């Protein structure tokens, strides 16, 4: 227990407390100035339109990830839950993007989605016989959607695995009984799988939400929050405030905001889980 506590204090609690303290200071480590400013950093970031747009982008990211990934992962999990060779192969395939580092994925999709020289536009040009020049990452109207699409591609397989674990803990007899009664695949999904999977889906939804709040690497590698902040999320906003503008205190205030949102999500989950448990 003690070693775990030491590690937790050193690498989690310590930085959290340091971040909380830092948020109350104007700190410029390069220029060498430190000054207590109280809540000024919070006032700054909460009235900053960039914080608002970053928060909005995170919320869109959560919403679309939930809407796309959860149903897709559920259908895939239900369809591939048997032990056949083809299911095992497909499961591995769908899961494989998760083991690729996000930076590599970002670089890869940077090449695929480039507006002028990208592979996707080249393929579309061939298919439609017309020169296609969609700025997947440079058009501010679609850049965020393109990135969310990439994230869905990367993470759906993981959530499929999470739900699959849940499905495999559902007693086989239920399905066998339903099959004898002549229930279709769809009826079994709706009548058995989804109701019995509610708790796992809840946990999974929370994982998706938290993952979407802390999303950073994919955005930073591909667009750095651009074009003109169209794909800016809280984590990239935090980074550019702290490092690019060299406002460490204000950057920490953004981090505290992220912490608060994450805690809120965890709290909601705990309440829901508790209610489930008392059913």
């Amino acid at each position, binding site marked *: 227990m003690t070693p775990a506590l030491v590690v937790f204090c050193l690498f989690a609690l310590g930085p959290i407390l340091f971040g909380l303290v830092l948020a109350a200071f104007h700190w410029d480590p390069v220029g060498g100035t430190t000054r207590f400013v109280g809540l000024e950093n919070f006032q700054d970031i909460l009235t900053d339109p960039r914080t608002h747009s970053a928060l909005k982008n995170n919320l869109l990211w959560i919403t679309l990830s939930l809407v796309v990934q959860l149903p897709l992962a559920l259908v895939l999990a239900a369809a591939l839950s048997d032990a056949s060779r083809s299911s095992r192969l497909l499961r591995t395939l769908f899961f494989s993007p998760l083991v690729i580092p996000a930076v590599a994925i970002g670089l890869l999709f940077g090449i695929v989605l480039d507006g002028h020289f990208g592979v996707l536009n080249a393929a579309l040009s061939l298919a439609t016989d017309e020169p296609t020049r969609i700025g997947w990452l440079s058009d501010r109207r679609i850049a965020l959607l393109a990135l969310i699409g990439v994230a869905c591609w990367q993470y759906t397989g993981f959530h499929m695995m999470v739900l699959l674990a849940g499905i495999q803990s559902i007693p086989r007899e239920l399905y066998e009984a339903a099959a004898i009664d002549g229930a279709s695949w769809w009826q079994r999904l709706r009548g058995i799988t989804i109701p019995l999977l509610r708790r796992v889906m809840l946990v999974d939804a929370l994982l998706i939400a938290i993952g979407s709040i802390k999303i950073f690497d994919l955005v930073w590698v591909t667009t750095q929050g*651009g074009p003109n902040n169209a794909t800016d999320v809280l984590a990239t906003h935090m980074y550019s405030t702290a490092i690019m503008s060299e406002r460490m205190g204000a950057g920490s205030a953004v981090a505290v905001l992220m912490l608060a949102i994450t805690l809120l999500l965890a709290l909601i989950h705990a309440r829901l889980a508790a209610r489930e448990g008392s059913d």
Partner: protein
Amino acid sequence: MRRTTATRRAAFLALPLLSLIVAIGLPACGNGEEAGNGDGGTGTAASPTVVEFASIWVNPPRKPALEKVIEEFETVHPDIRIDTEFIQPDAYKMAIRTKVAAGEAPDVFFVWPGEWLWKFARGGQVMDLTEELDEDGWGDRFLPNSMPLFEYEGGTYGVPMLMQCKYFFYNQQMFEDRDLAEPATWDELIHVCETFAGEGTTPIALSNAQAWPLHHYATILWQRLVGEDQLLRDYDRVTGGDFSHPGYRQGLEMLEELISQGYFTPDANGVDRDSARLLFASDESAMFYTGTWDLGWFQDESLTPAEFIDNWWMFQFPSVPGGEGNQSYMMGAPDGYAIAADTDVPEAALTWLRYFTSPDVSKQLVDELQELVCVEGAVTDQNAGPRLQKYANDLSSAPGVTPWADIMLESSVREAFLDALQGMLDGTVSPEGVLQRLREAHAKAREEAAQE
């Protein structure tokens, strides 16, 4: 199956924890490895003194040229080993600040002068080289106009390496086909742009994903309209002005004309530098307003199509008749190197920097890079191609060089300004809106500076 469940549990527990660590810990972390050998810079061939060196020369022809210089240096000085870290220029701006903030500064590192460097000087992060530069005429080696931006409150905090200025690079064949001459005035530039845009060709390749390229247009237009002296006065983070000269607004409105007429690459806020270079080198755009750092790029066969290498030339930013600035001014700044104040190997670091800026090495670098090294006599008729010679001649006959705004503005002001300009390129911020955000950020930074 059991394993998958366990994995899920572990992930469930670990993910929120990780997110907290990442969210809170990012600005605060730095790694604790690496230790200087602490002998004050007297190594031996068997255990050489290691000098950590940070460079942004990641591409050919720069990288191989630097590696060659280092190899030769290590042959002459077997007691010193140069440990180089190559970092992409745009990533470097963040990487070096993070390293310095964490107390992990490399012994010798690349710097942009002006406020960008002065901040390191204020924080006591870089060594004052005044005395060393006085010794055996080291300081006299450099072009005189390359030194002032390295000086701050009586000290000199770095040495210049390459002088960089902006030019319009243009496609000679495309100009010739349309009987276009190099534009000398703003109206002539507009005429050239109209001609290309009229046939559906994007006149000017622009990449603004990194946010700074567009601001070079603003800087030079301001120099033309407001004047170089007033501009420098307004930049200052302590005594700075309020950017109230009418030329500021006029300059941004002229820039907005280029934007609204579609003279730039579409969606340029999402276009990176390599793409813009490629658009220019593949006849997609007739002009590319870029820095002399690209002189080497567009003459290197591994980076540029061979048939294009002889098909481009360059002209200076046109004059704006009626403006209050000296219309023959160029825009640019030297880059250079500084030594970390807390280096464990000051002697070895100095030895390396003196060698790196020696006349012989400078001539060799000019030959290989086709860029302008800020050392007297480095550029000769023998080692410089026609483009570099033109640049060197332009520079020596220019009345002065105005530095680009991003190295002169305090960092939060710079970010606010570049951000607003990206908005202007997107059509979401007006010229007046850009100025307003610049003024607000500047006033706030002045307030901060006053409390130091």
